[in-house]
């Protein structure tokens, strides 16, 4: 019980911070979702970092280190490449967004391509990609509540409790709540993860180096990448896919809008990679769990960190770890929910009902929050995927927005709205077909060399996407060029 009481206290503090951040402010849709565009370097850092340290990091990364070994290292590799890309990518995105007072990611596409239909397509792709991301936060909350109750609360009940907490939190606080909770959460997770990452290897193996030596002796090859499957080719393609998709998430994209000036991104691009090193300690904890709680199979590998905590520490400390873990699900979970709701209300509903007022759209966005939670909850019950696999699926989908976005930035651009739409649709369709039918590149094209077969499906879809984008743009360019030129310069 002690552990659960501590976790409940964490939740109350988070909600209190959210209420406090909101009080005295008039919450327009822009205020509720992009914080009125007034955040400086530090807050943007915390929001983007808050995005980074999710349940995925806490439970997913340690779970993969525990269950898969070497391939888990991809998680450490991609973000630092994404920050390098962000140095050039985010300032023009921010400028354009500010100039046109954009709120959501699909607004960006609507404005750039002068096509509300393309905007709705982007919104739908974003929301669909966010579902697995949201599901993984809920899965994580379920694991945390259930493990911290020492088995008294079943995982199903725990997931429902977590979902209710998340929905209440989002409804109350909006983005200001997220930013403040992110401050508390980041301080806690840094402390907890570094402590666990040092203490657990010491406690169970007598040190980090010794731990790796004994794992390598017991399971040769576990700490490196296998020759086929999760091979170096898989690693490189997955790191690339995730780095390109990093800022394509609708909630990350609109968190970019909340900055006060574009230099915030450039400065953050220098410091965020170092913050990334916290993951190293998550890996240490995950590897130590191999020795502490061996034998967790399949999606149970996500339990490894918490089971180790329960086995090693007193209940009050399990509560602190669990409470921190819950915040890592709450902050990004709230951003995900809020963004999906805003996207659907503003860019899909508005397309059907262009005469809807801002008030109606704002109210609809808030009403959609519990609906989306319920949908994610349903998927969570039908789970069975590990946290990392859920995120990989989301990334494969969301990265399909990258080619169209990148090619929309130059002032003289080649890509047309038809090309962008056709590329996105073909990329997403490729991912969907491969994922739903369970086919692999190896089944389709067995004559290919092994490294090509191991490529992440998202990267293959990205190639299809880009090829279609260029072909359709070339075909539709002649007819759209006269109208495309004034649109590009049309600042409304």
């Amino acid at each position, binding site marked *: 019980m002690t552990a659960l009481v501590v976790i409940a206290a964490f939740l109350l503090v988070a909600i209190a911070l959210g209420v406090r951040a909101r009080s005295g402010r008039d919450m327009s849709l822009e205020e509720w979702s992009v914080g009125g565009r007034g955040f400086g370097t530090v807050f943007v850092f915390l929001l983007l970092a808050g995005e980074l340290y999710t349940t995925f990091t806490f439970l997913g990364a340690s779970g993969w280190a525990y269950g898969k070994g070497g391939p888990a290292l991809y998680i450490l590799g991609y973000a630092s*490449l994404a920050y390098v890309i962000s140095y050039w990518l985010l300032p023009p995105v921010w400028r354009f967004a500010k100039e046109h007072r954009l709120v959501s990611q699909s607004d960006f596409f609507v404005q750039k391509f002068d096509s509300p239909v393309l905007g709705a397509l982007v919104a739908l792709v974003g929301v669909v990609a966010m579902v697995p991301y949201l599901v993984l936060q809920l899965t994580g909350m379920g694991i945390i509540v259930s493990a911290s109750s020492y088995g008294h609360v079943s995982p199903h009940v725990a997931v429902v409790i977590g979902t209710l907490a998340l929905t209440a939190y989002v409804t109350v606080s909006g983005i200001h709540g997220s930013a403040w909770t992110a401050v508390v959460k980041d301080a806690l997770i840094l402390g907890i993860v570094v402590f666990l990452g040092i203490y657990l290897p010491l406690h169970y193996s007598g040190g980090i180096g010794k731990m790796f030596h004994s794992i390598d002796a017991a399971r040769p090859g576990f700490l490196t990448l296998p020759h086929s499957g999760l091979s170096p*080719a898989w690693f490189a393609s997955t790191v690339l896919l995730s780095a390109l998709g990093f800022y394509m998430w609708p909630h990350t994209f609109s968190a970019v809008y909340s900055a006060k000036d574009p*230099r915030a991104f450039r400065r953050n691009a220098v410091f965020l*990679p170092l913050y990334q090193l916290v993951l*190293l300690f998550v890996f240490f904890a995950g590897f130590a769990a191999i020795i502490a709680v061996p034998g967790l199979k399949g999606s149970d590998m996500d339990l490894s960190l918490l089971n180790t905590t329960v086995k090693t520490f007193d209940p009050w400390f399990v509560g602190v770890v669990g409470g921190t873990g819950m915040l890592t699900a709450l902050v990004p979970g709230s951003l995900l929910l809020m963004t999906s709701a805003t996207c659907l209300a503003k860019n899909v509903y508005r397309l059907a009902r262009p005469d809807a007022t801002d008030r109606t759209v704002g109210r609809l966005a808030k009403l959609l929050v519990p609906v989306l939670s319920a949908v994610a909850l349903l998927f969570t019950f039908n789970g069975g995927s590990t946290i990392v696999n859920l995120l990989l699926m989301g990334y494969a989908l969301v990265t399909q927005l990258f080619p169209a976005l990148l090619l929309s930035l130059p002032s003289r651009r080649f890509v047309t709205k038809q090309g962008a739409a056709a590329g996105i649709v073909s990329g997403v369709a490729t991912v969907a077909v491969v994922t739903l039918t369970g086919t692999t590149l190896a089944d389709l094209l067995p004559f290919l060399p092994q490294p090509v077969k191991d490529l992440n499906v998202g990267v293959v879809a990205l190639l299809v996407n880009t090829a279609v984008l260029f072909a359709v743009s070339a075909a539709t360019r002649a007819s759209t060029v006269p109208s495309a030129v004034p649109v590009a310069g049309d600042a409304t």
Partner: protein
Amino acid sequence: MSPARKPGSTRTSRVLLPLLGAVPFVGILGGIFFVNRVTPYVLGLPFILFWVVLWVVLGSVVTAVIYRLDPGNREPVEAEEVSS
């Protein structure tokens, strides 16, 4: 930089800086094919893990260098803001 060196600094930001930015990509995406082994251990880490950690740190260093070289960061903030 003085106005006289403007053309040079523009070329720096157009060509040299993206090239620098590509270095961490080569290190992680290309390097992984050559470092897929446990030995030698460095700082107690298996070599492959050390390599990835090294590039996370170097990624930050490279971005810091880019930040310092980029003439865009020397102008006052107002100059970068969009005048709407």
